[in-house]
């Protein structure tokens, strides 16, 4: 009974069919056209200059505005109550999924910036970090319902300055208290931490294999730290590795080659342009900033041409935000790759749609406007690669989650509600003062 109730709750509130017509549709993978997109049961069923609208479908006149696939941010830290388990060098036993906060206002703000899916990552305090969660920005729903069904599990790795910071007596630590030294303190140590962990994981994997082959009778003791690493070795968990400098990028690729696993994406990867050939050869994706630079030493050689060079050298590239603010204008970040390096409009839009979808192994569901894909769509009033463009409406699975008109028209009511609540709080405080003459000891 309880299960049934939960199942009912999980159903979309408005599963109505939608036809978005009179739109300039930027499909990203199938060119552009002016016409309609038909959505049934949360999926795109038909598109083109002329379509058959299903009877009873809700019709949205786009008024000639631009419709593109929902933006996918491959690196975010919103909607989570905790980011870094920084007390250990390998924190693969922890998971972002366990600390999701579906009430983080940044989810709504991301929606208002056209983002429909985000890879919420553990922080970069340790060489091997925690497990990440791919979320759909289903604002208003519970934590479970935000999780992208069918997305592949992932994990965060981190190289360079951040994971070695806890080894420095002077620097401010990430996720720890000062004076509490932790190995590693160098890039050499970072490599060693990863190598030690995978050596252990291989032995652990072998134990389980031996048990499954009935070579040993007792099952090995479960190790929650090593299990995710075994999943990596078996290709069941995607590695997203925070990295900056060319040397550390190459180190990780070679280490992964040696242990027989793949790096799914290099995150930040600001010197990726220096080893683009090697990244492409390994088959790793690169998820970078458009133009961040010089905020730390390992970002001194960061250039805004990074994405374009890597694209030209055959790397699968996406642009990410790592910031609740930047997340709201990834379309404008994409435009920067046209300015710096001369990518085409479609290449630029790919960096925030189909490419991050591929990097998260969700491209069969989202990342472009194509029949059969989930109806995650964004309507902009101008071409999304223009700085003057503003998000008007956002759909996830065909359900409207953001509507600028509604946001604007609701503002007065929201302001009123806030005033009422503040007044209520003020009164409650007054009452409390009257009744409890307690003052905190000083």
């Amino acid at each position, binding site marked *: 009974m309880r299960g049934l109730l939960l199942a009912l709750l999980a159903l979309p509130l408005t599963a109505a069919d939608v036809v978005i017509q009179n739109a300039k549709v930027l499909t990203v993978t199938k060119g552009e056209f002016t016409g309609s997109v038909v959505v049934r049961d949360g999926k795109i069923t038909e598109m083109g200059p002329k379509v058959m609208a299903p009877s009873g479908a809700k019709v949205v006149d786009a008024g000639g505005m631009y419709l593109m696939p929902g933006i996918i941010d491959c690196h975010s830290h919103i909607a989570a109550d905790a980011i870094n388990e920084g007390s250990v060098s390998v924190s693969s036993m922890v998971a972002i999924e366990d600390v999701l906060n579906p009430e983080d206002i940044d989810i709504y703000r991301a929606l208002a910036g056209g983002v429909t899916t985000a890879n919420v990552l553990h922080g970069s305090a340790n060489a091997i970090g925690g497990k990440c969660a791919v979320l759909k920005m289903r604002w208003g729903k519970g934590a479970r319902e935000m999780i992208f069904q069918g997305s592949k599990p992932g994990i965060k790795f981190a190289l360079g300055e951040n994971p070695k910071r806890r080894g420095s007596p002077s620097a401010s630590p990430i996720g720890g208290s000062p004076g509490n030294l932790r190995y590693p303190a160098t890039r050499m140590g970072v490599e060693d931490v990863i190598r030690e962990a995978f050596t252990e994981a291989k032995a652990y994997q072998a134990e389980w294999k031996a048990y499954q082959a009935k070579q040993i009778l007792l099952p090995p003791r479960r190790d929650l730290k090593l299990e995710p690493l075994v999943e990596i070795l078996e290709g069941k968990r995607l590695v997203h590795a925070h990295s900056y400098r060319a040397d550390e990028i190459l180190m990780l690729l070679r280490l992964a080659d040696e242990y027989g696993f793949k790096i799914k994406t290099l995150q930040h990867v600001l010197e990726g*342009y220096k080893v683009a050939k090697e990244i492409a050869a390994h088959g790793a994706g690169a998820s970078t900033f458009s*133009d961040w630079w*010089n905020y*730390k*030493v390992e970002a001194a050689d960061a250039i805004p041409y990074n994405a374009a*060079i890597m694209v030209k050298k055959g790397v699968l590239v996406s642009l990410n935000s790592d910031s609740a603010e930047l997340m*709201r204008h990834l379309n404008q970040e994409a435009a920067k790759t046209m300015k710096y390096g001369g990518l085409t409009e479609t290449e630029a839009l790919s960096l925030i749609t189909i490419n991050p979808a591929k990097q998260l192994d969700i491209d069969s569901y989202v990342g472009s406007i194509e029949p059969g894909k989930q109806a995650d769509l964004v309507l902009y009033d101008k071409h999304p690669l223009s*700085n003057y463009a503003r998000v008007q409406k956002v759909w996830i699975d065909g359900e409207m989650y953001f509507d600028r008109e509604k946001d604007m028209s609701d503002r007065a009511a929201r302001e009123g509600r806030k005033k009422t609540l503040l007044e209520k709080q003020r009164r409650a405080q007054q009452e409390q003062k009257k009744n409890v003459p307690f003052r905190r000891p*000083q």
Partner: protein
Amino acid sequence: MRIFLLAVLGAGLVFGGADDTFLIRNATVHPISGPSVENASVLVKDGKIAEVGVKIAAPKGVRVIEGKGLHVYPGMIDSATQVGLSEISSVRETNDTGEIGEFNPQLRAVTAINPASEFIPVTRANGTTTAIVMPGSAGGGGGGGGELQALLGGQSSYILGQASLVNLDGWTWEEMEVRRGAALQMRLPQMPQSLGRFAALLGVEGPGGNMAEARRRLEQQKRQVASFFEDARRYQKAKVAKDAGFKTDLRFEAMLPVLEGKLPVMITATRERQIREAVAWAEKEKVKLVLAGVREPGKMAEELAKKKIPVIVGPTLALPLDDDDPYDAAFSLPAELHSAGVPIAFGSFGNQFARNLPYQVANAVAFGLPRDVALKAVTVTPAEIWGVAGEMGSIEPGKLANLMVTDGDPLETRTQVKHVFIRGKAADLETKHTRLYQKYLARP
């Protein structure tokens, strides 16, 4: 070899004359001070704009730049940066933004500007020709650490130093200098808003906690600021009266132009109450006020308009202050201030993203700021605010030839900046970034 020689000779013929004298022709000229003109020319002589119009013949021997398909705008003025004062924000040794001490009016940003900073060519390459470079938070050379130290020490900086106005080109800071002192950078004492985990250390535990102590501290700090200004006035009188025993004091000396109303005071004030306090304080002290960091002007917008107090807005691409603020609060703030009648100029408030100033401006346009006002807010309006309207900010005869030449709308990211002229000299558009791009694109 022969071809090379011919090329050099040819270039010599075309590019004759002094390097700060040239003609841009057949371009669309946007003077900002007046309507845009198509197929127009701009004649620059000795670093200054000599003539603007449709029928200008190139004087003999003058270098001609073909402007077909191009647009000529005044170079942008960024009204809030720390370019040259801070290189890598996380490395203390590269930061010269924040000095120790409560009152430092004698500090001048300009002499600490590193003219070899990578931020200078990178910012310039996107069309910003002139920038305010301002001192920042207290102690530790800059960054958040110093500010925390100041908090924990129970003291803060109120007068941070003098912001300087500089052109983003020059072999030395002296060649970059436009105004050594453009504004006195100040922060007024404030009630701690949210100190989080540091609150306990300060003995201030928020509402219901040790508010009385916080108020007492605030009043004390306000008196400290007031008495510094009183002392400065006494010094001024003593100097004018040539009092016996008058001794030069560099701090008070630096205060004279402020007291005379020649040097504006730039104060960071975020919310309505802080803005009200800053305005009241400036009126009481009779100083010229410029506000920065405004985020929630509320009813004060009308006051600022009435009193013609300019606001340096930015960064536009910012999160709202509070969870329940409209998502676009920062995007639409410039429009809100403008429609109330407040004079606005844009600042990037940083170094890393100073090159994105035009895109910050474009976002304000997307959320309601008229485009012509937006362009003025990076050209003529800041020139007025910083007292250099006679020298720059528009394309008019007599003004410095600080120009950007683009292949389209300068507020759009996709637009390329083709030329930048500073004091009539073609600025190098090559940067560390373009060099690394060429080098690694060519990697076999």
